[in-house]
């Protein structure tokens, strides 16, 4: 109903579409900073997404 349109727009604008389910190792933008770059595939020290919310 909307996915074909969203997919076409994503393809045109070169944007990644989010999946339905978040990856387990994903971190939110607010959880990181330039000084403490989270290593891909690991959670940032001290803050856990599932603990916070």
């Amino acid at each position: 109903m909307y996915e074909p349109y969203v997919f076409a727009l994503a393809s045109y604008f070169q944007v990644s579409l989010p999946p339905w389910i978040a990856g387990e190792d994903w971190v939110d933008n607010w959880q990181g900073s330039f000084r403490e770059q989270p290593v891909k595939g690991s959670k940032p020290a001290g803050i856990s997404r599932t603990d916070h919310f």
Partner: protein
Amino acid sequence: MVIVAAICGVALIVMVLWEGFETIILPRRVTRRFRLTRFFYRGSWRPWVKLIKILVPSRRRESWLSYFGPLSLLLLLSVWAGGLIIGFALIHRALGSAVLTMTGKTGFLTDLYLSGTTFFTLGLGDVLPRTFPSRLMVVVESGMGFAFLALVIGYLPALNQSFARREVSISLLDARAGSPPTASEMLRRHGSEKGKEALQQLLHEWERWSAEFLEGHLSYPVLAYFRSQHDNQSWLAALTAILDTCALIIAGLEGACERQAELTFAMARHAVIDLSLVFKTNPRKMNPERLSPEKLVELRLLLAGSGLKLHEGEAAELKL
């Protein structure tokens, strides 16, 4: 030759003025097939993407893609200014290059110079119109130059405001639905009783956001090329996550705000369809599907873990 120059000059000026009117002033979608602005954007965006894919490493591509929106806008304004200058130069040519110069030489380049200095209202006075029609053209062009400058000065803040309004809600989605935002995280983070109220409020805000987004991007389609400032965020990803969440609620999520989800879904879908019409992106099927039967089972389990029950059965799946 004189007639051809006059026709070309007038046509060029009218075309640029009409394009400027449609792009900056007219607040609705233009359905005309050939548009200089559309041609300009379609003709420059795809080569830009191809060039970046070839020249820029993947980790820096997003930054380079984000330069396109602002750069293209400056280039488009330059193309319009150039079109008007050439148009008036052609008219001066058609009027017989009736100008006085210090060297006595006249020609199309002199006409172009006179047109350029007049458009930018430089008033150097080293090339002067000597007949009434030429003087009239100089007056008209200098007025147009002022108007062009005024429009540009007014246009850029309007664009920036519209962009900032769009991005505020997208940034807020970071804590509410993750980065990138997903339906599963949005529902999981609003699983509690108080969370359900917050979810209803959030969907209400996104119904409004979608309407504002639609109005803003129909008036200024160039905004769609302006990319979000933060990693893993974009207007399209946010809109998709909202649509996914609404679809799940409508398909049958017990105790969730179905009415609000229906309203938000309608507005968000309207925005997506109209944007795809503006950019002439034909709907296409995703392969593989974003929500496979296995993913749906996984999603049910995840939601159940947060106390949310998604209706089961053929009817619910068909609805989804």
